[in-house]
């Protein structure tokens, strides 16, 4: 039994039909082609499938697609303005916080959201906020450094909080 749903995906109204047992992650990847969110552990331990649901980070592999009906979903693809990278994306590149890249979309969303909530985080606060995201390559050091660097830019005023990303 297909259920019609309508929601805002990366700023655009979309309409589709889903099965009740369909997962948001699969809908985003397969029907809409947004392959930023990744399937890794599937049990809520790794954070690679993180998307924003009404602005709050949630795990799309543990969200039913029917549940986003009437809500707003943002994937990592929806963060950047046009073709420019976001503050956090640039910082991750500069600090070499990316190796295989599989966990990166999750980290980008989380650090982005953290900086909007708390533009002046301590290292401890950063590590606590991203504790639901696993990275098997870089060992977090460079990822945390990137978050600190992005926060530093906010402190210096080179980037304003409103300019962190589009969402």
């Amino acid at each position, binding site marked *: *039994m297909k*259920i019609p749903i309508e929601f805002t995906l990366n700023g655009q109204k979309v309409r589709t039909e889903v099965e*009740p*047992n*369909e*997962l948001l*992650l*699969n809908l985003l990847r397969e029907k809409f082609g947004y392959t930023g969110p990744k*399937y890794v*552990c*599937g*049990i*809520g*331990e790794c*954070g690679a499938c*993180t998307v924003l*649901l009404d602005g*709050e*980070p*949630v*795990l799309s592999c*543990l*969200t*039913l697609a*029917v*549940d986003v009906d009437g809500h707003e979903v943002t994937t990592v693809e929806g963060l950047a303005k046009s073709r420019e990278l976001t503050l956090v994306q640039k910082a991750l590149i500069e600090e070499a916080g990316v190796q295989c890249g599989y966990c990166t979309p999750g980290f980008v969303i*989380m650090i982005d*959201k953290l900086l909007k909530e708390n533009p002046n985080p301590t290292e401890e606060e950063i590590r*606590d*906020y*991203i*504790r*639901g*995201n696993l990275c098997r390559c870089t060992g977090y050091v460079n990822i945390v450094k990137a978050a600190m660097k992005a926060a530093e830019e906010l402190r210096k005023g080179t980037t304003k909080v409103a300019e962190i990303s589009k969402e």
Partner: protein
Amino acid sequence: MTQVNIRPSRHNLYNTHIIPVRFEYFAPSSLEEALELLNKYGSEAKVLAGGTDLLVKMKMRVVEPKYVINIKKLKELSYIRDEGGEVRIGALTKWRELERSDVIMKYFPALYDAVKAMGGTQIRNMATIGGNLCNASPAADSAPPLMVLEARLILASREGEREVPITQFFKGPGKTVMRPDELLKEIIIPKPEPGTGSAFIKVARTAMDLAKISAATAVKVEDGRIKFARIAIGSAAPTPVRAWKTEEALKGKPFTPEVIRENVKLVETEISPIDDVRSTAFYRREVSKVIVEDALILSHERVVKGWMK
């Protein structure tokens, strides 16, 4: 060449990218409608709240419900209300909302500790306090704090509502006193009497993991003597448990490190831990005493030194 025998783990065998279960889906828009559905399908239905437990189990085919009743639309069950002598929390309140609530932080430090210790940011944005309780895991982080805070649960069904003290709610791993037609509606926590301190300590491999063992305490000291000390342990018995004997032994005694260390030895007689993937029965028994001692001292310290930052 050496033959390597690679056996896929159970996790890889069963954890598919999809939910390999078909079910009939309901998304009631009011509590009455939800209770009506539970009344009709109760024993064959599963209630979906945050989904962080149920959907994992459905992916792994641990549960294959015929009906899924998604209660996420019941916004009327999501609230934290300060009503003078007690605080009422809607069962669908997300952990993230508990984390952001000044009321929870101010009156219930043990619960606040548990909120901070549970999952990561994303999980706390999804998981609900009611789901954590109804899932009835011996490791449920919300259970020990709510037990020492003497919370009561409101269970609703089509026939009406009933109130159950949380100490009588759990029956075994995954089992509660709830009937198939009942829904957990509300958690009521009385504000502790002034001078009561509380704390929750969880021992886990990583910040994201379930507890190897956990303990919550609430204690009030008057004129240097223990007026009451409440102790609850998680992950050390088929359900979260109160350590009644230890509590009784501590009552009236002077609050000194020596007295506490001596009396918390009783804790290991009140639990029945097992060996499992997360820890061993031996370790749990040994550590139970240590974290109860630490939690009692921390609880009292919060009264003496102040708690709110």
